[in-house]
């Protein structure tokens, strides 16, 4: 990834739960709701499956922004996965902020299977915000 502010193209890794957000991403596709190709999705069964370790590793390997997307509270296909995710990532996000790592780089959103438009909107917004922040140098590893 180029690192000059001008030519800078951020890499966004999005962990999407299979039942809502991944379906939302597919719907964005079927309804041609475009968003930047900077966004790359990893499919997980549930936002509750996303280990903070995955997120940190993504940042280490050069992700400039990471999104975890799951079903809206109350809609989790597994009853409570997103509730646990909400607690875990509330803590993680505050911690990153506290350690001086721009919290905007890490987002958690609830996107349902019927919110294709929202999916692309969120992706556009996230990409733009991260583009403004510039490349993630703080967590990125040496390689």
């Amino acid at each position, binding site marked *: 990834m180029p690192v000059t502010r001008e030519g800078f193209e951020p890499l966004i890794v999005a962990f999407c739960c299979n039942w809502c957000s991944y379906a939302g991403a597919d719907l964005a596709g079927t309804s041609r709701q475009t968003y930047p190709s900077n966004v790359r999705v990893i499919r997980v069964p549930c936002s509750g499956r996303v280990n903070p370790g995955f997120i940190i590793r993504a940042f280490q390997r050069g992700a400039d922004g990471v999104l975890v997307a799951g079903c809206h509270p109350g809609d989790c296909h597994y009853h409570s996965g997103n509730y646990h995710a909400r607690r875990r990532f509330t803590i993680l996000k505050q911690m990153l902020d506290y350690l001086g790592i721009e919290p905007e780089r890490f987002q958690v959103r609830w996107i349902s299977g019927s919110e294709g438009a929202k999916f692309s909107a969120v992706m556009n917004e996230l990409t733009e915000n991260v583009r403004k922040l510039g490349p993630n140098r703080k*967590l990125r*590893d040496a390689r």
Partner: protein
Amino acid sequence: MSTANGKIRSSAAEALAEGRVTLVLGWRKKDFWWQSPVAFVESAAEAEQLTFDPFSVYNPVKYLLEAAGCHEKVGVFVKGCDSRGINRLLQDKRLEREQVLIFGLPCSGMVDPVKIRAAFPAPKICEVARDGEELLVRLSDGQERVQTADFLLEKCLTCRHPNPVVYDRLLWERVPVRSGVDALRFARVSSVAQQQIQERYAYWTRQFSRCIRCFACRNTCPACNCRSCIFDQAEPRWLGKASDMSDTLNYQITRAFHVAGRCFECGECERICPAGIPLQELNRRLIMDIDKYFGPYEAGLAPGDLPPLGTYRGEDPAGFDES
């Protein structure tokens, strides 16, 4: 003081003699005045070496993980902070209550050798003993009295539970909680939090740049009681071997996250850290957030309840944009 030692030794000896326990964990004096490491006492005779002095700061609880495995029942002396460690292990199902005989030692704080040395640079210090509210410092050339309060360890100044929260026997009177503890508890965290984000990053990377990943913080922490730590695993490799800031942050974030809602603020991680990294500032930040978002919670008080990250409420607020 000596009375304290008397009580400790007799109760240990008694328990061993009667065979109610086959091992007792306490402290003994080692080569230097400022060392009172954990002692493993297996006979009434050995109990004589037990001591409880201003330096009995080490948390004996972590040793229970091993000890409880090979002993029917273990006796253990605990200060307030140590006792919350017992609850930590009980809550983590790493220990059964009936496996331990707990002697509770109300504790008005442990002394910081560094502060003592700073106060008495020149003469050789032979012994530092507690005498009521004061410390009796025996020097090569005579002795001096000082106020204990001025020489306490950082972590003891913010101790909210100086009296054991779980025990079979309390060996002496409860002591009062230090006044102004709550004000101090999050003071350092807040002062860091108030800085600009770039300053915070600079601050923490400056601290962490000293981290040599010796894992002392993990090893001493009763909350870090996994049989096998993910940091030691090769596949997947959660923690890279490279000693760069990226992996140090990875380590520190993960460690803090794993004790989130479980850390009971004994502060051993920070005290033990050879690089002097203010780890409590990170742990306590997480405690602050947990209090703020999920309701006030103090770990190590009630082994029965679920830790904050092991449960949820439908109406939990989120620390991120939920729109």
